[in-house]
C-alpha cells in the first residue's frame, strides 16, 4: 500500500476523543436565565455588585451589539449561532465570598488538580517561604488565577504580589477595588464597538484577570490564569486587562481547557494590554479547548480579540501562543506600536487535526517612529483540518523607519488538510522595510521513515519532526510551559499519520 494511502487511512481513524481534559465536574451552579437581553446584562452586573458606571458601559455595548452582524471574512465554516439559546452567566454554588482555598468546593479543586494546576500546593508554598539562598531554582513560583465558568474561584500569591505593589486579581474585584484604574484602561485598547464578539464580550463579560504593575517594578513571578468552561450551553466571556506602567515588566500565561461535549460551546474573550514607556509585557497562551470528536462533533468556538497597545516609547509587547484545541479558532493577537522605538512580537504555533478550523494570525500597526515588529508563525495541519494564517502589517504615514520581519511556515500532515497564508501589507511611509517569507511543506515520508528506521514509532517520529519545526517558537515560552507545550503538541497529533 503506498505510504500516502496508509496515512489517509490512519487519519480516518483519528481519535481526537483522546482529549485528556474532557471530564465534567458535577457541581451546582447559579445561572442567569437563558438568552440575551438588557435584563441579562443587568443580572450579571448585579451579581457582580458593580458600580453604576460599569452597568452603563455594558448596556451601551449591548445596544451597540444589537446593530452589528457576525463577521464572515474568516476561512471558517460553522452553523449559525443562536445567541438566545445560551446561558451568559454561570457561577459555582455556594456563592459566598471566598477568603481561603478551603472554602472552595472540593470538586472544583479536584478539577484543577486533574488539570495539573496545583492551586492548593501553590497556596501552601505561601506559608513556607524558603530562606534566601535555599530556594529551589527548579520550582519557580507562579501565581495562579483560576476562572471556572464565569467566575474566578481562586487567586494565589496575592499577598506576596501586593508587597511588590503588583495588583493581580479577578477583574470583577478590580472593578470594585480599583475603579479609577479600570475606568481609565478598560476598552482603551479594544473599544466596546470594536467587533461583533468584542462588543458582545463588553456587554456580558463575567470575569477574568486584572493586572497592574507599578512604575519600575519587575513582577517577582510569572502570573497565570487558567480558564475552564464546565457548564453546558454556557458561553464564556472573560476579560483580561494588563497594565505595565513605566519601566515595569510582567510575564503572563493563560491556559484553557473544557469538558468534552457534543454541542459546541462559545468562548469570546477580550484581552487588552497596555505598556507605558520602557515597559514590557510578555503574554503566552497555551490554548487547549476541546477540539470536537473524530467526526467533527462538539468543540469550542473560540472567537477572541487580543490586542496590545505599546503606548509608551521603547515599550515592548510580545505574544506567544500555542493553539492546539477548539473546533474553530478566530484569533489575531495584535500590537499597536504607538510609542517611538516600541516593538511588537508574535510567535505562534497553531496545530489543527480532525475537523478543526483555525484562522489566526496577527496585526502589527506601526504608528510611532522606528518601531519594529517580528512575526514567526508555524501552522501545522493534519486530518481534515484547515489552518489559515492571516496577518496584517501596516506603517502609518508618520512611522518613519518602521521595520517588520515575517516568517510563516506551514506543515501539512496527510493530504486531506489545508494550509493557507493570507498576508496583508500596507506601507504608507517609504522608509518602512517589511520582509515577508512564507513556506509550505508536507511532512516527508522519507523523514518519517528515517526516524522509524532508527527505532521511533510513527507517532514519536511525527512528534519529533513537528517539535523541530516549531522550535523557534517553543523557545519563546517560559521554560516550564515549553515542556508542557511540547507534550501537548505530541498529544494533539496522536493518530495523525499512519
Amino acid at each position: 500500500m503506498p505510504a500516502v494511502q496508509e496515512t489517509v487511512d490512519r487519519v480516518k481513524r483519528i481519535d481526537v476523543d483522546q482529549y485528556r481534559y474532557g471530564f465534567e465536574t458535577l457541581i451546582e451552579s447559579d445561572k442567569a436565565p437563558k438568552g440575551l437581553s438588557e435584563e441579562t446584562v443587568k443580572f450579571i452586573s448585579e451579581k457582580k455588585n458593580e458600580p453604576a458606571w460599569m452597568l452603563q458601559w455594558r448596556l451601551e455595548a449591548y445596544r451597540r451589539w444589537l446593530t452589528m452582524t457576525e463577521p464572515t471574512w474568516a476561512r471558517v465554516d460553522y452553523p449559525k449561532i443562536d445567541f438566545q439559546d445560551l446561558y451568559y452567566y454561570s457561577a459555582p454554588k455556594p456563592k459566598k465570598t471566598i477568603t481561603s482555598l478551603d472554602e472552595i468546593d472540593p470538586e472544583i479543586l479536584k478539577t484543577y488538580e486533574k488539570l495539573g494546576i496545583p492551586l492548593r500546593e501553590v497556596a501552601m508554598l505561601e506559608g513556607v517561604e524558603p530562606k534566601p539562598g535555599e530556594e529551589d531554582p527548579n520550582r519557580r513560583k507562579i501565581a495562579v488565577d483560576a476562572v471556572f465558568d464565569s467566575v474566578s474561584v481562586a487567586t494565589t500569591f496575592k499577598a506576596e504580589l501586593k508587597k511588590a505593589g503588583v495588583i493581580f486579581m479577578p477583574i470583577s474585584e478590580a472593578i470594585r477595588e480599583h475603579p479609577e484604574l479600570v475606568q481609565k484602561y478598560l476598552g482603551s485598547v479594544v473599544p466596546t464597538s470594536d467587533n461583533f464578539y468584542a462588543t458582545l464580550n463588553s456587554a456580558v463579560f463575567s470575569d477574568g484577570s486584572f493586572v497592574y504593575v507599578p512604575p519600575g517594578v519587575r513582577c517577582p513571578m510569572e502570573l497565570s490564569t487558567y480558564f475552564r468552561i464546565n457548564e453546558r450551553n454556557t458561553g464564556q466571556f472573560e476579560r483580561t486587562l494588563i497594565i505595565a506602567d513605566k519601566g515595569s515588566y510582567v510575564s503572563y500565561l493563560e491556559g484553557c481547557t473544557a469538558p468534552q461535549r457534543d454541542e459546541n460551546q462559545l468562548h469570546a474573550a477580550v484581552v487588552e494590554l497596555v505598556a507605558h514607556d520602557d515597559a514590557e509585557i510578555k503574554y503566552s497562551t497555551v490554548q487547549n479547548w476541546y477540539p470536537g470528536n473524530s467526526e467533527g462533533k462538539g468543540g469550542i468556538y473560540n472567537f477572541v480579540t487580543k490586542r496590545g497597545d505599546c503606548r509608551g516609547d521603547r515599550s515592548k509587547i510580545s505574544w506567544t501562543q500555542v493553539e492546539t484545541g477548539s473546533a474553530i479558532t478566530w484569533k489575531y493577537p495584535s500590537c499597536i506600536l504607538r510609542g517611538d522605538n516600541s516593538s511588537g512580537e508574535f510567535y505562534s504555533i497553531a496545530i489543527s487535526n480532525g475537523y478543526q478550523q483555525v484562522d489566526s494570525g496577527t496585526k502589527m500597526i506601526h504608528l510611532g517612529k522606528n518601531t519594529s515588529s517580528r512575526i514567526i508563525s508555524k501552522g501545522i495541519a493534519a486530518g481534515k483540518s484547515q489552518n489559515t494564517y492571516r496577518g496584517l502589517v501596516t506603517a502609518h504615514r508618520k512611522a518613519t523607519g518602521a521595520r517588520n520581519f515575517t516568517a510563516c511556515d506551514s506543515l501539512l500532515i496527510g493530504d486531506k488538510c489545508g494550509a493557507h497564508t493570507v498576508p496583508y501589507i500596507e506601507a504608507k511611509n517609504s522608509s518602512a522595510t517589511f520582509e515577508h517569507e512564507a513556506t509550505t511543506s508536507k511532512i516527508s515520508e522519507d523523514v518519517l521513515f528515517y526516524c522509524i528506521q532508527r527505532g521511533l514509532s510513527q507517532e514519536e517520529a511525527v512528534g519529533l519532526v513537528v517539535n523541530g519545526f516549531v522550535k523557534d517558537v517553543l523557545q519563546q515560552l517560559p521554560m516550564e510551559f515549553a515542556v508542557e507545550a511540547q507534550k501537548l503538541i505530541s498529544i494533539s497529533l496522536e493518530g495523525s499519520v499512519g
Partner: protein
Amino acid sequence: MALLEVKDLKVRVEEREILHGLTLTVNEGEIHAIMGPNGSGKSTLSHVIAGKPGYEVTDGQILFKGEDLLEMAPEERAAKGVFLAFQYPVEIPGVTTMNFLRTALNAQRKARGESELMVPDFLKKVREVSKSLNIPQDMLKRGVNVGFSGGEKKRNEVLQMALFEPSLCILDEMDSGLDIDALRIAADGVNALHSPKRAMVVITHYQRLLNYIVPDIVHVMSKGRVVKSGGKELAQELEESGYAQFEDAA
C-alpha cells in the same frame, strides 16, 4: 542459523514487479557486497528489509535470526538490530543531532525492555565515537544533517551505527558523493565496527568502495535477482568487464 535469510523474494512497487525472486543468505560476522547497475533493485531490497512503506511483498520470505521479519513493524526491526545507512540521509531541522541520537537510542532500548541510558553514560559514548569518526562536537548541536556536507552526513550514519550496535548493517551506496578522504574516514569507521557478531551488507555500484571495506562474498544483482555470487575477486572482475555480461543472465 543464518543471521539474515532472504528467500525467493518478490516485491512490487505500484503494480510493477521490481524484485523477481531474490535469494540471499548472510551469516554473523560476514561482509557481503551487493553490486549491480542502476535500477537493478539494490535499494529496493534494502528498503524492504528495513520495512519502508510503499512496497508490496507478493512472494517469498525474510528471516532475521530465524524470525519472520516481514511481520515486524519497521521500528521493531530497528530495535532487533537491523540498521540501514541511507544513501541520502534526510535533514530534520530544529531537532539537534544529540537529541535525535538519544531519542532513538532510548526508543530502541525501551522496545527491548532495557532501561534508558543515563545521560552521562550516553554523552561519554557519543564523545568517544564521534571523536574516532572525526565528528566535531558542534556538529552534534546542529539540526540532524542540516547544513552537513556529504561526508558529514555519511559519518553521521556511521556514528549512529556505532551507537545503536545493530547486528545487521546495510549500507546503501555509502561512497556516493564522497571524495577519497571522506570515503576513507567513513570506511575506517565501518571497519572498526566489524565484529564476529555483526554482519555488513555493502551495496555499491562501484568497485572503489570495496578497496576500503573488503567483502567476504560479492553478489551481482541484475533486474531484480542475484545472478552471480563469488569471492572478492568477483568485484575486480566486474570492474574490468562491466555489468553487460550479466544482463542476459537475468
